[in-house]
């Protein structure tokens, strides 16, 4: 931990949580998005509707699920629907305001690759693939992305378009007949980024406390654009940090259990 009293990872999760509100209906990706969504629910947005693609609607887990289908998601949900219903009525039907995704590779226009590193037919690394993401990216009202910065992750050119963001920028989404907003927010461990209103290129609008422009550039594979008036992300409050750390501690304890009888 740095002398700031919180880690970059904690800052990222808290900043992402703050972007969510009580009225949101949020399709939650596993990992960093899941932590952020549940911190939001446990702090300022107790009435947020969290949806996981396993069919659980309005779920309120006390620990972070390891998978998108852990039992507690169902036990605490308002209702649990089948997977076809989830993707047809709820996602395709336009009921979901925010899709919250992570990425293995991301480009400056919010296009995401979680399929392969290298060539598709002969990949250097075969990643899990898109799962729900291709349609989450096009059917949710807007998309938030959260990931740690690195030159391997934030790249000039992604190897595979798993999920379409803003394409090559501008009105590429409209040209494809996509009517939703696409990526509107990127939260990393160093900064908050928003797309330029015209070019749609992600632009740094706020640096987290103690972070420099150079650090953002050094961990990004493209030449970073910074907003004219750059803000500083307010540091996590005591309540936010406590909520996040308690959640992580409960999660670690819960996932450590073993199955074999002694």
């Amino acid at each position: 931990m740095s002398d700031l009293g919180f880690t970059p990872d904690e800052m990222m999760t808290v900043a992402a949580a703050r972007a969510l509100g009580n009225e949101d209906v949020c399709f939650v990706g596993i990992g960093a998005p899941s932590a952020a969504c549940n911190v939001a629910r446990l702090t300022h947005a107790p009435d947020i509707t969290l949806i996981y693609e396993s069919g659980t609607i309005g779920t309120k887990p006390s620990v972070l699920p390891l998978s998108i289908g852990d039992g507690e998601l169902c036990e605490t949900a308002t209702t649990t629907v089948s997977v076809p219903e989830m993707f047809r009525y709820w996602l395709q039907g336009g009921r979901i305001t925010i899709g919250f995704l992570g990425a293995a590779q991301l480009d400056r226009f919010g296009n995401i690759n979680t399929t392969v590193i290298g060539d598709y037919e002969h990949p250097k690394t075969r990643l899990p693939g898109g799962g729900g993401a291709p349609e989450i990216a096009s059917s949710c009202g807007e998309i938030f992305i959260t990931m740690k910065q690195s030159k391997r992750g934030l790249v000039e050119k992604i190897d595979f378009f798993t999920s379409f963001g803003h394409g090559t920028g501008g009105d590429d989404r409209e040209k494809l007949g996509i009517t939703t907003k696409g990526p509107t927010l990127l939260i990393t461990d160093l900064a908050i980024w928003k797309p330029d209103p015209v070019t749609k290129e992600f632009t740094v609008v706020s640096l987290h406390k103690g972070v420099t422009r150079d650090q953002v550039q050094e961990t990004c594979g493209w030449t970073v654009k910074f907003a004219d008036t750059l803000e500083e992300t307010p540091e996590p409050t005591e309540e936010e940090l406590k909520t996040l750390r308690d959640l992580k501690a409960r999660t670690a304890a819960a996932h450590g259990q073993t199955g074999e009888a002694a």
Partner: protein
Amino acid sequence: MPAFLSLSEAVRDNLHDGDTVAFEGFTHLIPHAAAHEAIRQGFKDLTLVRMTPDLVYDQMVGMGMAKKLIFSYAGNPGVGLLRRVRDAIENGWPNRPEIEEHSHAAMANAYEAGASGLPLAVFRGYKGADLAKVNPNIRSITCPFTGEELAAIPSVRPDVTFVHAQKANKAGDVLVEGIIGIQKEAVLAARRAVVTVEEIVDDFSDVHPNACVLPHWTIKAIAVVPGGAHPSYAHGYYDRDNASYLAWDKIAADRDAFRAWMEENVLNATPETFATRVANLRKAS
């Protein structure tokens, strides 16, 4: 009326070399015991269909049983990559299966279309997605009413589907509860369906009128295998063994470690061992 059989009989009677087979379960109720029985019986040239081909498909691919994979997310949920599947795709070990890759929305729609007796699934998807460039089964269709271009893919119709469920009654009706995933569609899309269950009860007089029940005449065979979903879970019976999913990442990372684990835990094991594996995961009652 389905046949109530031992797991080995149920698998032997319904699975054949070269079949298109779905071992379905969306994180929950994954039919691990049935898949392990299929591994013990050594089937070959299978087309394995599954939305989320996690550990069991990693195991079947690593044992060289797969000719083709049809899937939408080949990961170890919440842990990372499937290392046997990776080794097969990247290095051709022990063979290089053909892959047909989709999104979850596509696969869910394709199962539903299969259950509906339709030749294709139509949905709004794959917009701007590169999968449409590498999978020739992803095409488009124009809505005759609005002119909107929609995605179209073939329906999924497995020769046989295996699922795990909480319980059957004596008549052979099957109850699925909790995250029902794609269980119903996968059963109804298949020519034959085999179900493993935690237990058999006299009747379903106490279940909710809208519960997810598969009538007995939709199922070919039922085998009772307590713990048969482990390390997945059975809602109301035992929890997901997250530690086993984490441990698998190490086992599957090495070919020799994988083979040794399979020898000990699958090839030389029996369906009865599943009950032991979930003993500590059962909810205190």
